[in-house]
């Protein structure tokens, strides 16, 4: 459960309270999903340990929970309430409008009009995907790599097109097999897609498909092929086969916003974009185990170019086509 039980504070006077209080609502994955909900929670835990902030979470089981959980955190007199995941974008904005005195944050989502008390944070997933794509393009021996998506949509598009661009950038003849599973929770389907891709000669596959990707990692192990993880460093799942992961440092974002708040800074009303330059996305630190040093060195150079704006990475099909 939550490491530090939250105080009930019916009696406490919020005006005089010194301690800053931050809560987060998870999506249906729950707080220990080994993906970005967990990452977000780790960020808050760091904030608790380093900044002495009081933290708490509410897990959601279905769509209807998002709103109730946001509300619950408001009731618990949090100073800042996070919604983790684009899926609750709408509910978070509504809550922000309803409670102008309380601060809100949302991960992975942004809006055209942003209330002052709302802090959207989005990640340039396309940048990390580009990097792992580059690695894949360089490391493939068969000149064929794969991509498995969960459900097609704006977020997964960023992964797919970033990855594609990276692969082609590294190796323009490299063939890319891309397929969607239609679900984030069907490892058996992820497994068959991976089997078919490896069977067709792909030797590295990247996934952006949640639990579905677990099936892919299992096949990579069995067939002794390479896989690329997503969101967090997934090398633990198969240390010899997951060569790198496109990671998203939700923890950093959560921690930074908390730190700012503690120091009296608040940037609500505008979207914070966490890309390479902000340390928001990256490749996994364990990449050096399998990826040759030369390639990693090149990756470092590429990072610079991206940060400097020399390389533009598309986020969707339209941008990808426009680039060509």
């Amino acid at each position, binding site marked *: 459960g939550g490491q530090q039980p939250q105080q009930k504070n019916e009696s406490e006077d919020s005006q005089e309270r010194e301690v800053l209080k931050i809560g987060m609502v998870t999506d249906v994955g729950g707080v220990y999903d080994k993906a970005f909900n967990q990452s977000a929670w780790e960020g808050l835990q760091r904030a608790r340990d380093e900044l002495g902030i009081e933290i708490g979470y509410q897990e959601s*089981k279905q769509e209807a929970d998002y709103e*109730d959980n946001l509300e619950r955190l408001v009731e618990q007199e949090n100073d800042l309430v996070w919604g983790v995941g684009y899926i609750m974008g709408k509910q978070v904005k509504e809550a922000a409008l309803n409670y102008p005195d309380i601060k809100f944050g949302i991960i992975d989502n942004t809006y055209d009009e942003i209330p002052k008390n709302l802090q959207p944070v989005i990640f340039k997933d396309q940048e990390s995907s580009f990097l792992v794509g580059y690695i894949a393009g360089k490391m493939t021996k068969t000149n064929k790599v794969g991509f498995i998506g969960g*459900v097609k949509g704006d977020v997964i598009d960023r992964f797919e097109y970033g990855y594609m661009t990276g692969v082609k950038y590294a190796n323009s003849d490299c063939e890319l097999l891309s397929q969607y599973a239609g*679900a984030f929770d069907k490892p058996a389907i992820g497994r068959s897609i991976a089997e078919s891709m490896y069977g067709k000669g792909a030797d590295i596959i990247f996934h952006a498909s949640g639990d579905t990707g677990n099936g892919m990692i299992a096949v990579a192990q069995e067939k002794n092929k390479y896989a690329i993880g997503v969101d967090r460093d997934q090398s633990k799942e198969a240390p010899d086969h997951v060569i790198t992961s496109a990671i998203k440092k939700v923890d950093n974002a959560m921690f930074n916003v908390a730190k700012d708040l503690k120091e009296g800074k608040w940037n609500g009303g505008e979207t914070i974009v966490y890309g390479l330059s902000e340390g928001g996305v990256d490749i996994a630190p364990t990449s050096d185990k399998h990826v040759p040093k030369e390639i990693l060195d090149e990756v470092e150079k590429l990072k610079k170019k991206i940060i400097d704006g020399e390389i533009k990475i598309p986020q969707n099909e339209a941008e990808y086509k426009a680039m060509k």
Partner: protein
Amino acid sequence: MKQKIINETFLFTILAIVMGLLVGAVVIFISGYNPIEAYGLMIKGIFSKPKYIARTIIRATPLILTGLSVAFAFRTGLFNIGAEGQFIIGALTAALLGYFIQLPMILHVPIVFLGSVFIASLWGAMAGYMKAKFGVHEVIATIMLNWIALYTSNYIISLEKVKMPGSESSYDIQETARMSIDWFKGIVGASTKVNFGMVIAVLASILIYYILFKTTLGYELRAVGYNKDAAEYGGIHIKRNIIVSMSIAGALAGAAGAVHVMGVSYRASTLAAMEGYGFNGIAVSLIGNNSPFGVVLSSFLFGGITYGGANMQLLGIPTEVINIVIGSIVFFVAAYRIFQWITIFFNHEKPQKEDR
């Protein structure tokens, strides 16, 4: 005699609830938390503010309707596992009609609602038709149709005209298609979406009671449910009844979806997995003894435990405890004879071998 049976069922249900909570308390206790404190938080989370009560009611609303859907089908001898899919279809239709049609509210609300109910009733009728015409077991048909509904909804929401950019949902329905009760907001806060859904759900349960027990249609349906052969002998058209029954069940679950979209979410979202309204509806129906009013009560129980129970996370108690509590309640509702057995045991009365 009849009166006594009702009271007995009611008593056993209360006992089952108590036992379910006790099992939950044990689980909470062995996890190292204080069950009294935990349940205290749950109760507080339901009753301590008008807002909480309102939210519990909002939660219970779709469950009443899906629960009625399951209960109604049960009464007519059919097991509707398909309330889930019918809910999805109702919600999807409401989102589409609510967004694409432009009408004054007085027309828009009923048209969206009735339209969704109608389409969902067709969806339910499909399972009935497959059973009546081809003998496909309704359990299989409804399970399959659930998934087909889920993917249909996801597909339609993914269409360019429907999907709100930058989201995984449809566009919000027009203001004119929403059934919120605004004057309540003063009491329960602007964010609490009090809506006419509960009124619809309660009316629906009265209507279903009326249909089942006071009308010729209900008579027919129940006759078919109890004894198809005798019903057919008596001149009742079995196949038509199966279709009618499933379409009413579909309409009820569809109404749940419509009420959810028109009153709370204002849109339909891409679903990664089943949301559980239909499956929970099965539990609600069974706890409520498949009776229309029992369903209303058990929906409140279910809504209360899931909504108020989430408050237990304040102590760090995992949300899974809620599932264990609900599972235990349903278990003891099923195995209510345990209580009879216990009474007999304590009275040192040797139960009759034949008529235990």
